[in-house]
Every structure is written in C-alpha cells, then in structure tokens.
C-alpha cells in the first residue's frame, strides 16, 4: 500500500489518461447515436465480449513492451490456435484436450521467440516478423487452405454476451493476475528493470535473457487463450482470422500509456486502451460509419493518446 501511495505522490497513475479518453469517447457516442441506443445494457455486454480477445492479447503485449520488445506474431498465433482447436475437435479430441494442446503449442512458440530474443539477442521486431509469417503459413497449411468446420462441443458457450458466460470473467481474472505479477512480484520488478536499463539490470545480477524468455512465453500463452476465445466466437477454425490483430493490440497498449521504448506500462491502462478501441468500433457500427472514417478516428486517437502521454512525461521529468 505504501508503494502505491509513494507512486501516487510521484505522479498520476498511467491508466488515468486512457480511462478519461474512454469516458469521453463513450459519452460522445452515447450522445450522438440515434435513439441513444448506446446506453442499452445489451450493448455493454456485447462490447465486453468483443473486447475479450483484444484485452487478453494486450495483457501479454504489455509485458513484452515493458521489456522494450514487440510481438508482431499475435494475430497469426490467434489464428493458428483456432485452427488447432478446430482440427483437434474434428479429430475427436475432447474440448479440454483440444484447448490444452492449442495453448501448449502457443506457449512453445512464445518460448522459442523468447530464446531467440533473450539468449541469441536477436531483434524482437525481426524475430516476430518472421514468426508472424511462419505461423500464418502453418495455420493455412494445417487447415488445408480453408476454414475448418467442426462441432464446437460447448466451446461456443465459453464466450457470449452474457454475465453467465465464463469468457468475460476469465479475461478479468487474467488481467488481475498479470497486473499483480507485474506490480507486486520480483519477476514484475525484473521485467521493468530489464526494460528501463538492460545493462544495469544485468549488472545487478538479473538474468535478462531468462526474463525475456518468460515474458514472450507468457505473452504467447495469453495469445493462445485469446485464440480459444476467438474460436468460441467463430465456431470454426479460420486460418485467415485476425490478420493485423497485433497492430490493434499494440495500439491498445500504447494508448494505455506504455512507450515502445520500454520500462513503463500499465496493465489497467492497456485494458482501457482495448476497451477504447472496441467502443470506437461499436460506435462506428451504430452510426453506420464507413470503414475509412473508422480507420481515421482510431488513428487520431492513437496520436492524441501518445501526444498527451509524452506531454505528461516531459512535465514529470522537468
């Protein structure tokens, strides 16, 4: 508690900016949508459901970005996970086995990326750029270039726009877990240390390589869980799913107040960033907004978020 208090006296929490932005954008939409349909309770649940995949991916991406890294393979990994789950279910596996296998595959991919980045000191951008292509190709090949149709065997009820569906609660629990790990454990402090000054962290005896391997493995594990949620929505394995998802995820984390340089980041901020993106998307549908306007609005918000954040940073430094 005292740590939190001292943080507060230092400066306002990083998540406050994205939270204010979220409120402002939501209020604008609530006012201008026809018949105030934005205020219906079903809208909240639908937006919560739609945020789950993006938010879970953003949790992992926050860890990665705090270490000063980046992961471009998230979208491909989510698609691969839907394909693995669908393929296993079609082959007669039980849902539990299918989910466990898919998440294990995702985690293994993350560990591999982590080893490349942490031990062989390769650039995360390049490693994950390659991984992105390899995973996308694997997903399409594994699915024989088409969507895999299978009986979802209850997995379709994992994530629904309802408070009784476990998906939304799982996402919240994961967010709390990652926030605690990052904020209150030794591993979390090591992640920040590696991100803000890797050489100093190494001198202090932190195994930076090990930290990175763990971070990428956790991030991909979370992407795997997000992929299971994605399958729950799609009910088919779709190898062309989530192209470019990683960019939305990175946007969510950046809006959430994490600079790409590393060393800073807030799980809560990233979750608000993800919610903000979904609110814009939902509002765009309500307004019947053409896709190009939607792209521009999202882009402008990223600009503004980063500008405000860097202003805040300058102020606290001076």
């Amino acid at each position, binding site marked *: 508690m005292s740590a939190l208090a001292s943080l507060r006296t230092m400066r*306002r929490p990083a998540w*406050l*900016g994205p939270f*204010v*932005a979220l409120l*402002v*954008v939501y209020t*604008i*939409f609530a006012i*201008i*949508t*026809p*018949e105030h*349909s934005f205020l*219906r309770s*079903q*809208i909240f*649940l*639908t937006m919560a*459901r*739609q945020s789950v995949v993006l938010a879970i991916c953003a949790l992992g991406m926050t860890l990665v970005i705090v270490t000063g890294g980046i992961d471009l393979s998230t979208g491909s990994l989510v698609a691969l996970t839907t394909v693995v789950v669908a393929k296993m279910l079609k082959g007669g596996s039980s849902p539990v086995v299918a989910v466990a296998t898919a998440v294990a595959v995702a985690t293994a991919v993350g560990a591999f990326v982590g080893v490349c980045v942490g031990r062989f000191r390769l650039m995360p951008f390049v490693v994950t750029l390659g991984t992105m292509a390899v995973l996308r190709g694997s997903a399409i090949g594994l699915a024989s*270039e*088409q*969507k895999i*149709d299978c009986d979802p065997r209850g997995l379709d009820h994992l994530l629904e*726009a309802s408070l009784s569906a476990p998906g939304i609660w799982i996402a919240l629990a994961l967010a709390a877990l990652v926030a605690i790990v990052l904020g209150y454990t030794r591993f979390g402090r090591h992640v920040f240390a590696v991100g803000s000054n890797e050489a100093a962290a190494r001198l202090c005896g932190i195994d930076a390589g090990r930290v990175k391997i763990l971070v990428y493995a956790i991030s991909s594990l979370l992407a795997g869980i997000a992929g299971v949620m*994605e399958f729950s*929505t*799609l*009910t*088919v394995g*779709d190898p*062309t*799913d*989530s*192209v*470019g998802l990683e960019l939305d995820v990175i946007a969510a984390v950046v809006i959430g107040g994490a600079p790409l340089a590393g060393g800073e980041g807030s799980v809560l901020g990233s979750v608000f960033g993800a919610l903000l993106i979904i609110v814009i*998307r*939902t*509002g*765009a*549908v*309500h*307004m*019947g*907004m*053409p*896709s190009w*306007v*939607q*792209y*521009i*609005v999202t882009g*402008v*918000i990223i600009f*503004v978020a980063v500008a*405000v954040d860097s*202003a*805040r940073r300058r*102020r606290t430094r001076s």
Partner: protein
Amino acid sequence: MKMRALGAVVTFSILGGLLLGCPKDSSKPAPGTDGEGGAAPSNGRIKIAVIPKGTTHEFWKSVHAGAVKASREVDVDIVWKGPLKEDDLKAQVDVVSTFVAQGVSGIVLAPLNDTALRAPVKQAAQAKIPVVVFDSDLQGDDHVSFVATDNVAAGKLAGDHVSKLLNDKGNVVVLRYQEGSASTQNREKGFLDAVKAKPGLKVVSDNQYGGATTESAFAKGESLLLAQKAETGAVNGIFTPNESTTFGMLLALRKSNMHKKMKFVGFDASDKLVGALKEGDVDGLVVQNPFNMGYLAVKTMADHLRGKKVDKRIDTGARLVTKDNLEDPAVKEVMQPDLKKWLGE
C-alpha cells in the same frame, strides 16, 4: 494537470469533429449510410442493417446500389456496414452482434461462412430481429428468407449455350473450382445436367479442381488441356464455374494457342474477361445480378417487417452474356449498373 485537461479537450474536439462530421456528410447519400439512415432521430421508421462480405469490391458496390434503390422505393432506412477488413469473418460476427444489441428492425446479411454466422443470427432471432440472408447460404433455420442466384439454373444456362454452340455433339471438359464451395458446385451440377441431357455430348473430364487462385487454375487448366490431348481437337467445349477458374483457363488456352479452337463458356465478369469475350476468346459468360440481389434482399426484409408473406428462397437471376448481346440495355444494366445514381459517387 493543465496538460491533461488540454489533452481531453483536444481529444474531445477532434473526435467530436470527426464523428459529428459523419452524419452531416451522409445527408447526401454517401458510402456508408443511406440518407440519414445512420443518424435518424427516433421517429419509428423501419431501420434495416445491410451487412455485406466486404465493401470495396465492385460486386458489393452494385449490391449497395440495389439496396439503396429498394430502401427509397419501399421507404425504409438502411445502414450499410461491412466488416472493416474485406472478408474478415470475426469482424462480420462482431458487426452482426452489435446490430442485434443496438436493436435494429431487421438485418440483411451475406454470411462469410455458413456455420460461423449461425450463432449471431440465432441471437438476432431470439431478440426478435428477423434476418434475411443473401448471396451465400447459411445453415440452420433462423433466417426468414434466402435471396441469391439460383446457381443450378445459372449452370444450366451455360450448359445449354455450350450445347447450342456445339450443335449437341462433341467432347466437353469442366474445370471445377474448389471442394466444399457450395455455390460453384451447384453451377457445375447445373452445367453437367444440361450437357448430359444431350446424348451427342460427352463429358471427358469433370473431376479436376482449379483451386482458389488464378495461378492455380492456370496451372491446372494447362495440364488438363495436355492430358485430354486438346491440341488434337479432342476437346470441343469447356466450362469454368467462377472468375478465377475462367481467367486461369483463358490464360492456359491463350498460352497453348488453343483459344478460338474450342467453345469456352465461363462464369462471372471482369474487365479482362469482357475484353476476351469481345475478341472471341471466350464464347459466353454467365453473370449474376448483384444489383438485383441487394434490391430484392432489402425489399424482402421490408415486406416481412410489414407483415407480408415472403418466400423462403428467392432467385435473383443470372444472365448469359455473349459478344452479340453485350450492348443490349438489359445486359448493360447488369454489367454496369448506374452506381452514381444510387450511391452518389
């Protein structure tokens, strides 16, 4: 503190400007909304969400134009909203569920997948929002009507034309599109049914698949022509069931210098294919009618919402285009509908 307040003000004003600008733009029919459909005040008007598979392809622009025409004729508002990225299944699922949560009067949907869209459509049915499916079929029984080309009839159109061109005798080849693609399988079936009805026509190959791309269809077409010894005149007629196989086969025929030596009827139209039709390298193209599809889909939904009985299956028609009828006004209307008039572009 000051910076934060400033930031919020900046965010608010930029966003407000962009968002408020949108309905203003669409008061003349701009892409995205028809009339004031997107931001109509509460006045009890029927509001129909129209969800295509994508928004940038010519095909969907024609569908949009038809939908706008219907909305003006039957006096309803439509909201035209496709997935942000072309052909993005997840995005389409999200768009449908958002419209359900918003509570529109009805949803007109071209599903990207016949199983994945079942759940959101069921959700709509539970919320008492009727759904009309168009272009591609959806499994299940939760939708009011299915408005699309009757592909078997369209395939038969091609089959009859090939028979006529060959005077009911000769050897015929079909280069199929892809396993598991229902629309093209029905076209192939319609074609084969028509051809097999003529005893003088013999189907020498109908088990080869061109695959998803023009490149794969080109390669398959080339080896198919070689395997059937087409250069000796052993093949007289060819049918391909979609744009990519038609274009691939055209390239294969041209490369092996066998174009014009056999009768070739394809499906769908593009600028290149129409050019080949004019040059006589293609002897006929069966085209769908996307404008009519958009028109009938919205009209059917409006009829249903106003309590009229609608058919479970509505055919939007296909048409055979040849070099001779290319200039007919009726054909021109299908090939190049007046998008400007309806979309104001």
